[in-house]
């Protein structure tokens, strides 16, 4: 992958220092608490993978980090400011420096691929059309979609949609890039291509990348750090090597792909109903 021709300016933070710090984050849907006090740091310039099964709260965590859900407690520190407590205008300024790639791609169906990528540039910058044109081609080139400028999203395959969505997320030269299930619904070869793209982006731009996934192979390939989320609680936080070596039963169960035990004891069943986690499993 070619180096980015436009200078990214000073790095935001030293490599290794946290780009995002989450402290005691709590999120409720109605009466039900989904995230029960999440704490972690996402080091700048590194890839953090948030692992977790269905219903673990990982998607809620991601949606909260990009401001689509409001936390009921705790704080999200980005660039030394609490994202959760910001005013909307201030939050929008920060959002321009964040890119998000949605699970389905979320490309605007009424616009061509090029128009999709150009949208944030047109809306947030005063660049003229020819400059935007060049930037769009560049971004599409970076994700391997040169020549698809005038395609409509409906004409693209699943993997190409994801790539186009990544190009759009890259449009504003973000400092942080979020991925929701980047390889969901893709065949292994296409999924491996997306993993490679994520690695290449990190290497080329030193972007901080947060990936939410349940795909183990992909997670271990791209992660510098990993978090395992279970029922709204972080059960493990470390490097991929540390996680592999972990003796925590929940981590082992997830990594070794052991199915959930049948609930036999009455107390287990009650705890499952009330959403409490049996103490021995934590």
């Amino acid at each position, binding site marked *: 992958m070619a180096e980015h021709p436009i200078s990214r300016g000073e790095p935001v933070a030293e490599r290794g220092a946290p780009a995002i710090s989450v402290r005691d984050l709590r999120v409720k849907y109605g009466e039900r608490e989904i995230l029960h006090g999440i704490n972690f740091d996402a080091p700048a310039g590194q890839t953090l993978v948030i692992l977790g099964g269905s219903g673990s709260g990982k998607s809620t965590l991601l949606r909260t980090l*990009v*401001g689509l859900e409001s936390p009921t407690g705790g704080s999200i520190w980005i660039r030394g400011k609490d994202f959760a407590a910001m005013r909307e205008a201030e939050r*929008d300024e920060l*959002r*321009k420096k*964040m890119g*998000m790639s*949605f699970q389905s791609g979320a490309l605007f169906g009424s616009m061509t691929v090029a128009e999709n990528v150009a*949208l944030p540039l047109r809306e947030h910058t005063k660049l003229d059309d020819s400059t935007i044109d060049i930037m769009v081609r560049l971004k599409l080139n970076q994700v391997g979609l040169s020549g698809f400028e005038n395609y409509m999203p409906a004409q693209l395959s699943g993997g190409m949609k994801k790539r186009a969505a990544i190009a759009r997320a890259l449009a504003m030269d973000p400092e942080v890039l979020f991925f929701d299930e980047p390889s969901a619904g893709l065949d292994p070869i296409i999924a491996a291509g997306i993993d490679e793209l994520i690695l290449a982006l990190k290497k080329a731009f030193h972007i901080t990348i947060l990936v939410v996934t349940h795909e183990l192979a992909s997670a271990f390939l791209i992660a510098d750090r990993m978090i395992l989320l279970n029922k709204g609680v972080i059960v493990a936080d470390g490097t991929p090597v540390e996680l592999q070596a972990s003796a925590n039963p929940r981590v082992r169960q997830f990594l070794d792909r052991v199915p959930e035990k049948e609930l036999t004891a009455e107390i287990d069943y009650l705890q499952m109903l009330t959403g409490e986690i049996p103490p021995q499993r934590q």
Partner: protein
Amino acid sequence: MPFAQTIGEATINGLAYVGELTRLTGGAARAIFIDPFRGRRIRYARAVHQAMAVGVGAIPVVSLISFFVGLILALQAAYELRRLGALHLVAATVALSMTRELGPLMTAVVVIGRSGSAFAAEIGTMKVNEEIDALETMALEPVHFLVAPKLVAMLLMMPCLTTWADLMGVTGGGLFGVMSAGFTWHTYFQSTIDALVRRDIFIGLVKSLIFGIVITAVGCQEGFTTGLGSEQVGKSTTAAVVKSIFLVVVMDLVFTSIFYITAPR
């Protein structure tokens, strides 16, 4: 007790819904009338695109329906007027009914069917495909980006379409007048102009603006509250049409009452 409770809940839900519509319209109005002075641009291209879809695309069907409604009005009025020997009042009856009531109303019904439903379907599909979320993460306020251009288009196009519908309705009535009430086209239009005062036209145009706001707000609100899954988009679209027609008729009643009370005697 449950009966009272049902009524209470329905009232609260109804008021909450109207509150949501007001909030949405307020947000869009701020984007149109206030934000341009604060250095945020209006999306003219999107507004023009919407105006073409809402207004220009509706001209054929609005023309046809209004023409027929004008003709029907003339036939119905003539049935009674003939017995009174006042067939020459057909022109005035059609003119007043069209400009004050049926022009705006029939236009609104057509626009609900074409555009109100389309707004709900468009925004609902975007919601289901995470496109609304994508807008927000790109720091693009969905109300500014999606609702404001639609409201601009409606505010521009509804009065134009209504005026056109009035004209077509009068022409429809004129066909009857010329064929079987002894008018020539010239005398028919002259009688129409003599019968109308500026207030009649004004009332129709005010109504058309109100209807345009209602249609935009309901269509967009139904889109934004679409549930998960594509079958929900269909439900939102249906709800948008039914609720819009209901609210348009309610607003028609409210404004007709206001104009009746404030009419110069």
